[in-house]
């Protein structure tokens, strides 16, 4: 938790020298290990959505395999895929699947891209169990969370005010919801959350408010929701599309609109260090980091 008060600032002031010294110590040890063993490097580039997750994986993996160094850079899914096609990276990160045209291009260069799903990024919209509303479109969600709709009656519910619940602005989930639901993925759109939105410092804050307030609506990573105590709203892309309830399955197959699989692409079937790394990413340890960063882990068979 972040409990920095005024006294924290003073502490910060005095801790500066110590911190700098500590950082110096860490980097010098790292150089010593590098010198001792020949490094095997993996180049990893792409999606900005994935970049923090990829960095966390790379850092954690370094402790397991110190000889393998993974260099992670962002730049966007397109950049990563382009680099894979040109053969300049070993792993491309992408928050969308490769297009047919891109795959063809890669094959022309003698590269056979292999898709590996590494995590799922899905958000469930939750309301109180007593709320009669059980399905909403993305447009309705956008209207609700920007404050254009303020009464449940407008979306087929009771005549009651809508209480908006969200994560704090520094949460990645908040930003994802802002970009994908409120702004519907349109980068020109400048809509933001209504000012009366309750901002919760934790997922538990959202869950507890939704569970006890019959008029509350919130959203949260699927992994944090509890279908026994709150209602998960079925969401439709637009009024003509089917309403889909959030689940790991509908998140993974792409039918749930506020979810997307996150991929890593390799040139040809992964081998050696890359295969070991990807297996670790998809394994229990890698997926634990996925959950830590607020993404949906892959379903464990």
């Amino acid at each position, binding site marked *: *938790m*972040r*409990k*920095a*008060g*005024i006294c*924290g*600032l*003073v502490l910060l*002031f005095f801790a500066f020298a110590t911190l700098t010294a500590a950082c110096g110590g860490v980097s010098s040890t790292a150089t010593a290990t590098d010198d001792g063993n020949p490094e095997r490097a993996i180049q990893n580039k792409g999606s900005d959505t994935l970049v923090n997750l990829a960095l966390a994986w790379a850092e954690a993996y370094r402790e397991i395999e110190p000889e393998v160094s993974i260099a992670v850079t962002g730049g966007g899914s397109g950049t990563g895929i382009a680099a894979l096609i040109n053969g300049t990276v070993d792993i491309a990160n992408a928050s969308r699947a490769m297009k047919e045209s891109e795959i063809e291009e890669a094959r022309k260069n003698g590269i056979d891209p292999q898709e590996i799903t590494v995590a799922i990024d899905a958000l469930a919209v939750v309301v109180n169990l007593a709320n009669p509303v059980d399905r909403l479109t993305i447009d309705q969600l956008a209207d609700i969370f920007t404050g254009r709709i303020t009464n449940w009656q407008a979306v087929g519910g009771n005549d009651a*005010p809508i*209480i908006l619940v969200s994560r*704090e*602005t*520094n949460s990645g989930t*908040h*930003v994802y919801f802002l970009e994908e639901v409120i702004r519907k993925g349109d980068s020109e759109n*400048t809509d*933001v*959350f209504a*000012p*009366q*939105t*309750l*901002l*919760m*410092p934790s997922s538990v*804050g959202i869950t*507890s*408010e939704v569970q*006890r*307030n019959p*008029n*509350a609506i919130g959203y949260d990573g699927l992994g944090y929701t509890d279908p026994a105590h709150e209602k998960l709203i079925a969401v439709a892309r637009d009024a003509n599309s089917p309403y889909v309830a959030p689940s790991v399955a509908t998140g993974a197959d792409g039918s749930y609109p506020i979810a997307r699989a996150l991929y890593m692409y390799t040139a040809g079937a992964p081998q050696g260090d890359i295969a070991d790394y990807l297996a670790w990413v998809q394994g229990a340890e890698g997926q634990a980091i996925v959950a830590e960063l607020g993404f949906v882990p892959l379903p464990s068979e």
Partner: protein
Amino acid sequence: MAAANQPLDASIPPDEIAERRWGELIIEGVIRVAGISSIVIIALIFLFLLREGLPAFLDIPLRQLFGTRWYPIEEMFGLLPLLVGSLIVTVGAVAISLPLGLTTAIYLGEIAPPWLREILKPIIEVLAGIPSIVLGFLGWIALAPLIQNLGAPTGLTAFTGSLILAYMSLPTIISIAEDALYAVPKEYRDGALAIGATQWQAIWRVVLPAARPGLMIAVMLGIGRAIGETMAVMMVTGNAANIPSLGSGIFFQPVRTMTATIAAEMGEVAQGSLHYSTLFAIGIVLFLISFAINALAGRLVGVEGLRRSRGGML
């Protein structure tokens, strides 16, 4: 012991006196440094706040800084909702804790029999030691659903925060106010009763005015506790950076306080960014507010009042 009663010059050789003088000088020096150090630390804190927070005042147009929207990730840095939020929560807390705290202190100091006082006073002092996060948790789990059942749109409101803060500042107010009443000489009461005043008249007309400076300090410390509290408030006020609409429901709407904003956003903000310096700017505003409260307390108590209270205690 006998030697100590003799004049120093007669019993101690001159070089030893010089040594003692040196010793005294060192002790005096240490005490002086200790006395000044707190002033130096406060000055350092303020300088540090200024250095980190000043860019916000320079880089953000004032009109935006006093705008009505706080949404830092989209570069909306309006401090007004946060100021209003802190104000509402604090005013609510003071409105609850002031009458409750002062009447409790009067009961304890003037009316309660000594044996009851001996039981109650330590218990109230124990209350002061309850960590604020525990009270916040209590407010979140128990108080918020209660407030919601009273008809508020959500249990996480300014009033919920005020209740928790009032409870938190009560021990401070009671303890200090009771000490102030205790310092009023017994002769004042006896005199009042002797000329035929009732107990209530003696308390209202004689004891309370005599204890005024101490009571004022109790109130100011209580307010200071309320406005600076962070974690408990963050848990129960909903943190919506919204300016509540005026009216009877103003206390029953979610608000976001300045302290909660700093606590919630400091951890993830990029160092040196505009958002970062704006959080420090909020710190400056908080610092100035507490400074103003102290200055006001000084003015209200007044030099005359301070002298009287000292005279009373002697």
